[in-house]
């Protein structure tokens, strides 16, 4: 059982890394053309971001979202870019313990706050209970929405929601899964909730 679990986990780690590299790479090209300043001599801003407990000093275009700062400047590609308009939840991170869409948050606005990403939640050797539950219940297919789902689910358990499946579904409606893994995501959250 344990061996089986490790194999599954290893497979996910490899798959997630592959997806991140491929999709992250193609998206960063788009992001660079859209988010980088034209050669107008616009000034950069010094911005300090505290991510997963570590302080980072960055020099950023004021237009940089927290999502782009995490992915393109800090290389924390676990946080995904889906719609980039606050409609899909793939970019969900925690700011001061609360879940937010990092795509609609300017990096400059997040200065001074405690930012937590999926990389700060757990690692392959010490998974967060929610990560472990997603593995055990197969709460994903392609894996692209998964980090957002997990960040959202962890924060959700600290919010004042009722205990029914309907409550969990409503609380998680800001995270879209195009593969349709909702049933297993629900099972994973239910397990952590009752643990």
């Amino acid at each position, binding site marked *: 059982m344990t061996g089986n679990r490790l194999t599954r986990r290893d497979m996910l780690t490899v798959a997630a890394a592959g997806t991140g590299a491929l999709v992250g790479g193609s998206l960063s090209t788009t992001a660079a053309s859209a988010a980088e300043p034209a050669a107008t001599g616009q000034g950069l801003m010094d911005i300090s971001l505290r991510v997963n407990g570590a302080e980072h000093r960055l020099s950023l275009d004021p*237009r940089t979202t927290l999502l782009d700062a995490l992915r393109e400047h800090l290389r924390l590609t676990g946080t995904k870019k889906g719609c980039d308009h606050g409609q899909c939840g793939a970019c969900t991170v925690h700011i001061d313990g609360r879940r937010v869409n990092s795509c609609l948050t300017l990096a400059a606005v997040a200065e001074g706050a405690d930012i937590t990403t999926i990389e700060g939640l757990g690692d392959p050797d010490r998974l967060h209970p929610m990560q472990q539950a997603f593995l055990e219940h197969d709460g994903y297919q392609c894996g692209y929405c998964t980090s957002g789902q997990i960040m*959202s689910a962890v924060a959700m358990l600290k919010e004042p929601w009722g205990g029914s499946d309907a409550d969990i579904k409503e609380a998680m409606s800001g995270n879209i899964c195009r593969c349709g893994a909702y049933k297993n995501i629900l099972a994973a959250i239910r397990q952590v909730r009752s643990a």
Partner: protein
Amino acid sequence: MEPFTFSRAADPAEAIRAGTAASTAQQGAEVRFVAGGTTLIDLMKLDVETPRRVVDINHLPLAKVERTSDGGLKIGALVRNSDLANNAEVKRDYAVLSQALLSGASSQLRNMATTGGNLLQRTRCVYFRDTATACNKREPGSGCSAIHGFNRNLAVLGTSDHCIASNPSDMNVALTALEATIVIRGAHGERNVPIGDFFLLPGNTPDRETVMEPGDLITHVLLPPPHRGARSHYLKLRDRASYEFALASAAVVLASEGGAIRHARVALGGVGTRPWRSPEAEAALLGRPAERATFAAAADAALRSAKPCSQNGFKIELAKRCLASALSTAAA
């Protein structure tokens, strides 16, 4: 996204000073305040909003919910939608507001979005959001693509020949039924604006959505004391069960005594160019027994002046049923 300079306001006066430099507080303003950013950053990415200066107001001391001396509530403009929805006093005394807030957007967005920002939320009309198309709200005089275009989710009440964009907010509908007052601080001091006067009809100037002037900063929203014995309810109808804008919604506050309705406040969402208070429905309710026939008559009255376009005629019947159902729940 167009380039802008970013600064952080240390106090309201600094924010107001910065905002006063703009020529308008409406669409196209050169200076924008950012709080949650859920509307503004979205529209800046679409080049619908192109401020040259963005002022972060998140650090202003406006994030408290307080009881007022008259038993009402004073809500800071920076109180997040999720915190307001889950506030114990709001849940107890203004249930319709909590329900409306929780029916809007997603948990993530509600954690970001603020009371003041929600008041200024922009329409979801697809032409407003697409700079390649004509839109009188975004670009005055360019025409309205929606009147003969995709108008399924747009307004049937308060429209004009120049704009049929619907106000997308749930919170604003509840605040309208609760007769909230918007406290605005500006270059010439502070003023209180009843919510019924805050939003403007599109008329010939759909680009002008509120009475806000350059430099104006919403600091608070005031709620009157809860009406004794009244019950309230918010019902939202939409294309999917969650995380979707209203096709039609209703916020109602109702109190009966001796078998007759003695107090009624009715507002509709999703169908109006602004959060739609219906004095016609309220008049049809007052003094009448709280029963199905009364609610149906009120619903008819509320939609009597509705004007459908090619795709949104269904909203008239939908809004009627929505209102009748909300009234019936509040009276139960």
